[in-house]
């Protein structure tokens, strides 16, 4: 399984290297985003809703954007890969190989994950090194498992969306709306506490809300691993429930596509 995932990663890297401008533009976009948040942070100084956190609004938003960036990778990478494989005509090759589906799915996820990691590292690097964010390095290390769990829980939704795309080909009805709702409700750039009551209830049904809260507490709230354990357990619960469901949904969608003669078309 690992060999297959690494082979897919090598393939994606070799293909990505041929699109030279894309990586440069991604880096420029990250720097622009960091600068934008910094200047907004200079306008928004010490709002009472952020009282529990050290640092400024810039630090607050930086953490939210970092976590949602990984969540977005989990959510979108499968669907994007499915569309690409179908459009380039290479889906048949993958489906007629004996490679494990888990290895293929993990592999399709690895390159976007590394790309997002690079972008987030650059974002944090600019924030901490250039713009003076006061995040704790120890907190960064402790937040890695939280971010991984958040990403996997979103990947589960993304796998189900990828399954639908095997049938629908275009027009993913899940990932786009789900990411919009995530950005709106999970506290990425403003705290959940500013939302109306019923939206707050919905917000806590989304894994990213728990992931962002735990990561912020670790990085900006002075919390330790024990303090965020309840959030971590909730994220583990999301993964345990969502991942098997999404894999089953994906298998079912491929089965429908195979029986209907839809595999390989675009």
């Amino acid at each position: 399984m690992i060999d297959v995932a690494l082979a897919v990663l090598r393939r994606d890297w070799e293909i990505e290297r041929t699109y030279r401008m894309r990586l440069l533009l991604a880096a420029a976009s990250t720097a622009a985003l960091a600068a934008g948040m910094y200047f907004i942070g200079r306008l928004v100084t010490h709002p009472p809703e952020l009282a529990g956190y050290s640092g400024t609004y810039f630090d607050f938003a930086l953490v939210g954007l970092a976590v949602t960036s990984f969540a977005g990778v989990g959510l979108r990478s499968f669907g994007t890969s499915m569309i690409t494989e179908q459009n380039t005509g290479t889906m048949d090759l993958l489906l007629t190989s004996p490679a494990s589906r888990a290895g293929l799915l993990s592999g399709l996820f690895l390159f976007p994950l590394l790309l997002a990691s690079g972008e987030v590292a650059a974002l944090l690097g600019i924030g901490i090194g250039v713009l003076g964010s006061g995040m704790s390095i120890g907190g960064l290390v402790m937040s890695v498992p939280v971010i991984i769990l958040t990403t996997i829980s979103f990947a589960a939704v993304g796998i189900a969306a990828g399954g639908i795309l095997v049938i629908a080909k275009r027009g993913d009805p899940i990932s786009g709306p789900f990411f919009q709702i995530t950005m709106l409700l999970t506290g990425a750039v403003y705290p959940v506490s500013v939302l109306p009551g019923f939206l707050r209830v919905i917000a806590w049904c989304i894994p990213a809300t728990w992931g962002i809260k735990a990561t912020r507490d670790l990085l900006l709230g002075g919390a330790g691993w024990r303090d965020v354990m309840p959030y971590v357990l909730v994220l583990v619960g999301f993964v345990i429930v969502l991942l098997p469901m999404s894999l089953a949904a994906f298998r079912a969608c491929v089965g429908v596509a195979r029986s209907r003669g839809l595999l390989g078309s675009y």
Partner: protein
Amino acid sequence: MLLVEGVRRTYEPATGLVRLLTRTATDTTVVALRHVDLEARPGRILGLVGPNGAGKTTLIRIIAGLLDPDAGRVLVDGHDPATDPGAAARALGLVLADDRSLYWRLTGRQNLEFHGALFGLSRRDAAARADDLLAAAGLADNDRRVFGYSTGMRARLAIARALVHEPRVVVLDEPTRSLDPIAARGLCAVLRHLADSGCTILLSSHRLDELERVADDVAVLVAGQVTFRGPMASLRTAGGTAASRLEELLHADLLPAAMR
């Protein structure tokens, strides 16, 4: 050994959730395969011939496990793609008619190495196998990204890719469609060599003269049914070639009833 037993396949219009999500290829019921029996044996090349729309590609997609049959079964070296897809895939080398199945932004070597990894080869073995196959395909001296290949080079690479994992059964859907006559003859020689080494080969082609040269057996598929199956030699008559007899078989079934 490749065995196809009583395979039927009908394309139905989409219903329910599938209809909501997408359009399928047809809005009416289309019978693609009515009842197909075939047997390709080790060491022999079975030529599959039929007019456009006869069901050849549908049959090949069922053999590859990309499409489920409505009835019947396929055995690839003893493994059913529907129930044992991993073992069937390992036994099968597949060349589809569509050369888009290659990664155009990878080099030929990278395509072969990636395919080797999908089939469980170590990096070293995949690299060694890629070396051999690129040399055999005449692509070793000019390894560049596939989008820089000619159509013929892509066809040769697709065939090389199908052989990376040393399959026991090789199925080729119109592999010489884009090849010049010399390259097509070279491919036929490669297929002969593979068959002589014990491989089972199913070769779908519209080139009747080419099939006559290379195939040991032939099956004629018309309107989803096998209308002739037997040794190529049995089609050779005094003063006539097997290719001309095949053409007669095809035309007999293609002509509308009123014109016969």
